[in-house]
Every structure is written in structure tokens, then in C-alpha cells.
């Protein structure tokens, strides 16, 4: 039985899609059969970030509506074995996501895959609720910024009351924080919330800190999950986060400003 992971945040633009792509890729790199699903109906973007936009024929909604078979809609990643993408529809709206339809697709996927990563849309309405409803694990993607932290807290409340596990009185969805776009230099200047501040406020375990990094934009330009850019801070931070998710004890990196030597300052090389 595959495990269902939701990447959720409440707020938009914090890095859910970036993190979904990276995380799914990371799990596949570690040998797990993994599929990543785009729940952002109407605003398909995961396909671009994964670099498979030109191979989309059928989508998640087609499968829910019985217009295509799951095997027809699944796109196998060209770089990594074990990794598949289920894109969403660009033309329909969130009402196309019925609970029964989503459940049927997830049940079918969980027979073949070890991990199902759900890329949630922003908000706390239907699309986001559907993305988190069946989850076993939630990764709360948060930026060190007041509105993002507050929205994350709202989502934690929703997970605790409106997920399947909550409704059926099962063991609660596990919740872990992925703090993204972290800028240690601004933190040191007192301009940005510290990791510890966010942890104290949200009171959930820390899965990882992903630094603000130019590598993310570069990777999205070419349709490559940033975790494959192993030379970058962000790529390494995602690799670490995946390891922690799998239960390994990995020290947090990139949370303090890097000491800039004369050499690197001359080169102005930023990851």
C-alpha cells in the first residue's frame, strides 16, 4: 500500500510545486516507486516544473471522469526510473475533483506506487481539501513570513479536523515543516523570522530548511526538479529533507550565513 504525502501551505507561491517536484524526484532517486499528482486544477504547472509539459495527453480529471485510463494519463519521467507524473486539467475547475473520484484514483495508484505525492493548490477550499483529505503525511511548506506562517497554522487546523484520518478517528496525519526560501543573512540582520521562531509558533517537527536560491529559477527554466542540481544549496537541502523523511538523522545545513571568503566574494558565485 502506497503512502500518501500532501505538500500543503494555505498560502500560494511559497514553494509547494517546487517542493512536490523535488520531493517526488528525491524519493524515486532513493529507489521508491513514486508518483506526483497535480491537484491545482485549472492552473496546471507541475508538468512544466517536471519538464513533461509536451507529453501531456490525458490528465487526472479525465481519469476521474472515466474518459481515460490511469495508465494513459500517467507520464513516466525520462530521467528517473520509478518516477511518474499525473498532470491536471487546465480547462476544468476544482469542482471536477469529487471525493469518490479522487479516492478511486488514489486507491489504484497505491497498489503500484510506494509514495504518492500530492501537490496542493493554495487556499483552504475544495482543491486543497481534496489534496489533503486522504493524506497519511503532510509536509507543511512555509516561508519565514507572517502571512505564510499564519496560513500554515490554519492548514494544520484543517488537517486535524477535516482529513480522512481525523474524520474516521484514525491515527492523525503526521505533520512536518518544510521551511522554504530561507535567507540566513536576512535572519542574521533581524529582518526575517528564524527557524526556531517558526518552529516555536507552529510546534511541529522540522523536516528541512530550503534556502532562498537562484538555482530554483534556473531549474524551473529548463524543467528539471531542483533536487537534480546537486551542486546547489537548494538541491542539497531537498536531498537532506528526503533523507530525514525516510527516518535518517541528517544535520541541518544552510541555516547560518555562509562565510564569504575573499575568493568566493571575488567570484560572486552564488548557488
Amino acid at each position, binding site marked *: 500500500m502506497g503512502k500518501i504525502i500532501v505538500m500543503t501551505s494555505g498560502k500560494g507561491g511559497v514553494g509547494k510545486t517546487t517542493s512536490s517536484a523535488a520531493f517526488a524526484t528525491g524519493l524515486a532517486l532513493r529507489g521508491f516507486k513514486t508518483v506526483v499528482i497535480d491537484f491545482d486544477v485549472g492552473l496546471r504547472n507541475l508538468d512544466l516544473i517536471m519538464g513533461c509539459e509536451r507529453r501531456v495527453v490525458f490528465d487526472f480529471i479525465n481519469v476521474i471522469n472515466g474518459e481515460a485510463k490511469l495508465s494513459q494519463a500517467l507520464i513516466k519521467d525520462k530521467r528517473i526510473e520509478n518516477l511518474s507524473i499525473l498532470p491536471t486539467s487546465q480547462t476544468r475547475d476544482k469542482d471536477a475533483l469529487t471525493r469518490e473520484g479522487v479516492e478511486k484514483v488514489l486507491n489504484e495508484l497505491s497498489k503500484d506506487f510506494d509514495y504518492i505525492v500530492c501537490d496542493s493548490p493554495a487556499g483552504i477550499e475544495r482543491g486543497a481539501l481534496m489534496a489533503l483529505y486522504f493524506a497519511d503525511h503532510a509536509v507543511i511548506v512555509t516561508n519565514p513570513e507572517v502571512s505564510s*506562517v499564519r496560513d500554515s497554522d490554519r492548514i494544520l487546523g484543517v488537517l486535524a479536523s477535516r482529513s480522512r484520518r481525523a474524520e474516521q478517528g484514525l491515527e492523525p496525519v503526521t505533520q512536518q515543516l518544510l521551511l522554504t526560501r530561507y535567507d540566513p543573512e536576512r*535572519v*542574521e*540582520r*533581524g529582518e526575517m523570522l528564524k527557524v526556531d*521562531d517558526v518552529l516555536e509558533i507552529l510546534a511541529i517537527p522540522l523536516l528541512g530548511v530550503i534556502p532562498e536560491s537562484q538555482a530554483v529559477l534556473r531549474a524551473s527554466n529548463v524543467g528539471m526538479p531542483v533536487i537534480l542540481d546537486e551542486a546547489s544549496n537548494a538541491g542539497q537541502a531537498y536531498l537532506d529533507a528526503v533523507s530525514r523523511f525516510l527516518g535518517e538523522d541528517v544535520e541541518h545545513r544552510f541555516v547560518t550565513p555562509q562565510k564569504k571568503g575573499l575568493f568566493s566574494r571575488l567570484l560572486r558565485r552564488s548557488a
Partner: protein
Amino acid sequence: MSIFSFFRSAPRASAVQAKERLQIVMAHERAGRTGPDYLPMLQQELLAVIAKYIDIDQNKVEVKLDRGGDCSTLELNIELPAREAAAKALKESAKLAVAGNRPQPAKDGDESDAVRMSAGGALTNGGVKKRR
């Protein structure tokens, strides 16, 4: 910490304010989330009591809650009917101060939550009273 940040005096860094503001607003939001939303009930019960004595229009009642750092205010605005035909519409407001914060989420079946609110000294005009 670099030697420069030692000299830069930033006793109230913006990140510190961000944290404080978040802690305050989220304490309230969490309390409101886990506890029953008692405001509609409170409104109904208060109205029932007032209606025992005064004939009021249910639509001309406004209940507002303003949650602050260490003091929250519950404001009740009731428009009272005028006795005489073309009389002026009378407006009376009673302010109840909720004693302190409500850090504890009210548990289901814990009816004492509404009781915990004290009218304190903030009850203006000695409560709801008809002005003639």
C-alpha cells in the same frame, strides 16, 4: 555574529515584531478553532433575556468581538424601539469586557466559557437601559 552587527543597534528588529504579532493573533485563532463558536449562542441568549423585558427587533442587533493582546471587548449594539410613533431611533450600546485573554480553548460541553466573561467596569450606562 560579526563585529558589525554588534555595533548596529537593532533592539526591535522587525523579525521580533513579526514573531510577537504572530503569537498573539494565532493564540486567538487557535482558541476560536478548537472551542465551539459561542458567539451566535451568546447573542441568542442575551437577546432572549432582553426580549423578556423589551420588544426588540432581532435584525437591529449587532454583536462585535475585538480580540486584543491582553484584553478583548465584546460589543453589543441593540437598537431599541421607540415607544411613540415618530420617535427617534434609540441606540444603546453595552460593552462587555472579556476579562483577559482567552488562552484556553473552550472544551465541548464547557458552558462556563460565556460565564467566565465578566462585565467588569466597562459596562457602560449600567447595562442595556432604555433612554427616554
